[in-house]
């Protein structure tokens, strides 16, 4: 077993625990590279089937390439696909900076979906290395009635024993690729032949490292136009991944406010 095999085996274990222990489970599909890997891992874990719904909380502002990708693979992979449309921006806290506000809108969309379908487990493709806050996450992270994350009072998690039972009204976020890094994602994508949205490859000296809404994600300078070149580039860089995300630069605490409100 090499490093990727070990990462994969751990993720599959987490996915299977979630499926065995949580009813009303769904995968959050943001259409980006990370959640595509999670979907792929689910197909591995369940031998070609994804035995729960796959939900896209749609802001309506993704790139056309992302929608095309979604529609194609939802069908090709036989996914039980659900699209949940976000409410209008006017319904969101106007004191937040613009990009954070847009993200908070997504929170509302997600909360609506949770209410509508009664989900008790949501699988999300976040990684500890994305930003400092996420480094604090657990594989199974309980969220309160209002979706909030109580960062300071997290249950201990060790020996692959996860918090799979929780009081009524709470749900859990499940993070099967928490232990992966950005370069792991790309190496695995290459090894497995997971389809990739073109926007990740360099065009006119720029590429997207991370894909969010069209108006708040920006390409970064790069000449990497193949998977190998992306991997080589990441090995050399020390620029953080989310450099191209507007929200991260708005305020030191915008992540934290969103997190506490259940956005991530």
């Amino acid at each position, binding site marked *: *077993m*090499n*490093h*990727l*095999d*070990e990462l*994969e*085996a*751990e993720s*599959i*274990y987490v996915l*299977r*625990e979630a*499926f*065995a222990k949580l009813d009303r489970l769904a995968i959050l599909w943001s259409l980006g590279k990370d959640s595509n890997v999670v979907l792929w891992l689910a*197909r*591995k*874990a*369940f*031998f*070609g*089937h994804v*035995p729960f*719904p796959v939900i896209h909380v749609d802001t309506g502002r993704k790139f056309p390439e992302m929608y095309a990708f979604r529609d194609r693979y939802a069908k090709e992979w036989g996914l*039980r696909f659900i699209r949940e449309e976000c409410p209008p921006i006017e319904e969101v806290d106007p004191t937040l900076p613009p990009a954070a506000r847009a993200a908070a809108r997504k929170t509302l969309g997600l909360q609506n979906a949770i209410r509508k379908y009664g989900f008790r487990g949501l699988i999300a493709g976040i990684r*500890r*290395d994305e*930003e*400092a*806050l996420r*480094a*604090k996450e*657990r594989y199974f992270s309980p969220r309160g009635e209002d979706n909030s994350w109580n*960062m*300071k009072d*997290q*249950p*201990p*998690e*060790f*020996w692959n*024993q996860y*918090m799979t*039972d*929780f*009081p009524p009204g709470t749900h859990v976020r499940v993070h099967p690729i928490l232990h992966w*890094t950005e370069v*792991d994602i790309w*190496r695995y994508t290459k090894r*497995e032949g997971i389809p990739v949205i073109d926007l990740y490859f360099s065009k006119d000296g720029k590429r997207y490292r991370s894909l969010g809404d069209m108006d708040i994600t920006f390409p970064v300078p790069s000449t990497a136009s193949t998977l*190998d070149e992306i*991997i*080589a580039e990441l*090995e050399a860089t*020390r*620029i*953080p991944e989310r450099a191209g995300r507007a929200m991260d630069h708005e305020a*030191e*605490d915008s992540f*934290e406010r969103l997190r506490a409100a259940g956005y991530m």
Partner: protein
Amino acid sequence: MTTEIRPLKIVIVGHVDHGKSTLVGRLLHDTGSLPEGKVEALRAMAERRGMPFEWAFVMDAIQAERDQGITIDTAQIRFRTARRPYVIIDAPGHKEFLRNMVTGAAASEAALLLVDALEGVQEQSRRHGYLLSLLGIRQVAVLVNKMDLVAFSADRFGRVAEELRAYLAGLGVEPVAFVPISAREGDNILAHSRRMSWYQGPSVIQVLDGFVPAPRPVDRPLRMPVQDVYKFDHRRIVAGRIESGRLRVGDEILFSPSNKTVRVKSIEMWNVSESPEEAVAGQSIGITLSEPIFVERGEIVSHLEQPPMETTVFRGRLFWLGEKPLEVGRSYTLKLATTEAQVTVEAIERVIDTSDLSSRPADRIERNGAGEVILRTRRLLAVDPHETNPATGRFVLVEDYRPVAGGIVSMDGYPDQRRLVTVRATNIHAVGHAVTREARHARNGHRGGVLWFTGLSGAGKSTLALALERELFARGYQVYVLDGDNIRSGLNADLGFGPEDRAENIRRVGEVAALFADAGFLAISAFISPYRADRERARRAAGEAFHEIYIHAPLEVCERRDPKGLYRKARNGEIPEFTGISSPYEPPEKPELVIPTHELSPEECLALLVRYVEDRFRL
């Protein structure tokens, strides 16, 4: 392109303020692992806020942490030396956050234990040392920090190091090195410090690079805890991760605690060119079996030789994280590998004082304490003593949804109970009743039997079963309906709705119905029982007395009736594996009686059934 080397997982522990976060910031900086501009940004931020720069800021990315001045949780940070990549898990020393330290340390392969040269060994230095030993972390290095505050004194270093060495020796932990450092000033981190020329040992980086990655236990006995059993397509796949050993196609394997033996037919994997012949420790796999035996989540797969032990009682060495103390007589949920069971604390053998490793008797273990307890379960568990197989020899206790303890299994003084169950099972002989079947029948005025109703949901099974029961009872029959409500809530309370559980549900109903028949009753069972194989098994249990009655209505009719709204839900995908929609119904081939409920009125159906019973069962 460099190849993918697995990062070594290390944890940094020690008393609060002894410099863990500082060391992390330092390591990241000195190995060139920080994003460009990070330190400058933090220095600028410190200046803006009018506070001195601290290396710990690198870690303290959370507002709340900066305000409170203590690191609150485990965080993972990556860096790389010339030799290999590392993941460091910062384990804060504040007492309240022991659970975070446990979370981090349990996942590590090696530990750095930090101690302040000026303050010397403190409460948490010892407690963390204790937990490292309990968590099974064997590679430990001690770093004596803040040497700048003791004028880089070799003498002071020697005394602090000696105190800790003696303590750790009591736990059987022998550190690979003791290094005098100044995390803040950068002494002995990367290279040797000129300010401590008396020290000849390795620098921190050299210590790290000298740690050995934990080997995967491929040479221990096979253990694969069953996570789940899947039937997404024609295959019935037993899924799990191999915790130790190796498994090959054709191997004869044993499931514990159910004690069933079977062969491995195949190892299943998705998106591989050919399915593998062998799988080893660390892999998450699925297997298919040579025979369709009933197995479920929580069992442990092993080879026939070297199986785990089976027991209802064991000794646990544990640390306690719960708000309420652990007390004798209390029950908790035990999680061990993929098994869950209720356990009761039968005794607390001793409570351990981690400050000097002394122990004393007690009737409770307080928060953040440690001790040795006897735990008892009602049903048999498969376990290993921790020293022979850690993955199946350690457990977590849960109370009010939260993990409150972690511990390791010792079987000292307790026998393997497997022998007991095996012998018990072969010792059973059918008991010859003193009362004959004929005598029972004569008293009742009718023969006993099983009226096995089968049919789709909504076909009318329950309604007709209850109506028939009322009618027959009025006519003087000993009659009883077995349905989901009275069986699921008691006898079969342990079963879910997966395919295996459904099969087991029907098997038990069949056995119970047969007992009723033998006791002279008419048992009416009203289960969908969609599979022929299951109904055949029920027929075998009751023999001659078994009457299969097909309560029939076409799917469209049942779906139109939909009395409980189940079909609608199933069509929406809210109910997986719903018979007739997403899971098959196999109609009976030669039922004793067919009741077409879509063609007859309820009264006509009931009349047919009553006549059938009167004809066959009345003496």
